[in-house]
């Protein structure tokens, strides 16, 4: 290879390197750039209605308060009952109780099947025990389900007031732990949230 040829090749390589260096790399995304991912933990103040921050704050406060109760140290079986929505707006209360349950379970609490998932579980139990399709020694047996000692239930209420300038919403979430057998309210706590918006 001639000296001149080598020089030409090197210049081309350097030029290619410089060009590549200047160009920014492509992000591993598809789309026109109108959509972006945000922080799921951010304080959401898009509107006055019940939102993600309310859900997260309620779940966190309730789970931490209950986790401190002496009853929880024995890790008793708890069942979840629907939280009543007494506000005027639509709120998926199952979403709130699910978040509370998730946090409590991460802290070590134990839950038994509740009414929301009972059908699915008992259907599977019946199939295994009564269909005759399963090997006797390797299938779930009827009559061994554990009853919960405690029941977790609650309600969410709201007071909404407005004048020509301001709309004020006050939410109150109450959660209680009931001793099923003895009929005692073992624990109760509430979380209040005030949201005010200009009209």
């Amino acid at each position, binding site marked *: 290879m001639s000296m001149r040829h080598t020089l030409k090749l090197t210049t081309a390589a350097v030029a290619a390197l410089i060009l590549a260096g200047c160009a920014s790399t492509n992000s591993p995304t598809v789309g026109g750039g109108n959509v972006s991912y945000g922080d799921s*933990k*951010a*304080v959401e103040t898009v509107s006055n209605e019940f939102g993600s*921050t309310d859900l*997260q*704050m309620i779940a*966190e406060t309730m*789970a*931490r308060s209950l*986790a*401190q109760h002496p009853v929880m*140290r024995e890790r008793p079986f708890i069942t979840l009952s629907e939280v009543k929505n007494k506000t005027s707006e639509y709120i998926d209360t199952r979403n709130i109780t699910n978040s509370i349950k998730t*946090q409590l379970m*991460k*802290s*070590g609490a134990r839950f038994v099947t509740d009414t929301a998932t009972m059908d699915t579980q008992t259907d599977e139990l019946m199939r295994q025990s009564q269909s005759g399709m399963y090997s006797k020694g390797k299938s779930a047996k009827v009559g061994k389900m554990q009853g919960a000692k405690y029941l977790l239930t609650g309600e969410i209420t709201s007071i909404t007031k407005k004048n020509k300038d301001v709309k004020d919403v006050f939410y109150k979430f109450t959660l209680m732990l009931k001793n099923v057998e003895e009929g005692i309210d073992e624990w109760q706590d509430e979380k209040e949230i005030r949201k005010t918006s200009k009209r």
Partner: protein
Amino acid sequence: MKLIRLALIAASAALSMSASAAGIADKLEQLGEMTYLKVSEMRVAKRDGLLAVQVEVSNTDASNQQLYYRFKWLDESGFSVWGEEAWKPVLIYGKQKKMINEVAPTPRASDFRMEVQSPNNSTNNISSPSSNGGGSN
């Protein structure tokens, strides 16, 4: 036996003191230095195996200030032992000293960091590199 007990009391006293005086700066993570809000006090104790934190935030301004905060829970090795917490909004009135109480969600948490952010920040204050390591505030 009495000596051991005394030593234990002394050790726990030293531990709680170091926790409260260990420097608020070590536990605080400011997203831009706050101009009007100051974390004036921080108390740490372990209750029933759970880490309890009490933080006093003072508003030095006469007008209301908004604060956003959340905690990170760590074990003794500095590993995170809990998922990301939601940011929590708090309104602090002019000249008010607000107490923020938080209890760790898991007994595995032995240390914490408090993240704070206030919309009325003066990030210019932290531009000088000396205040970064010096922690003059």
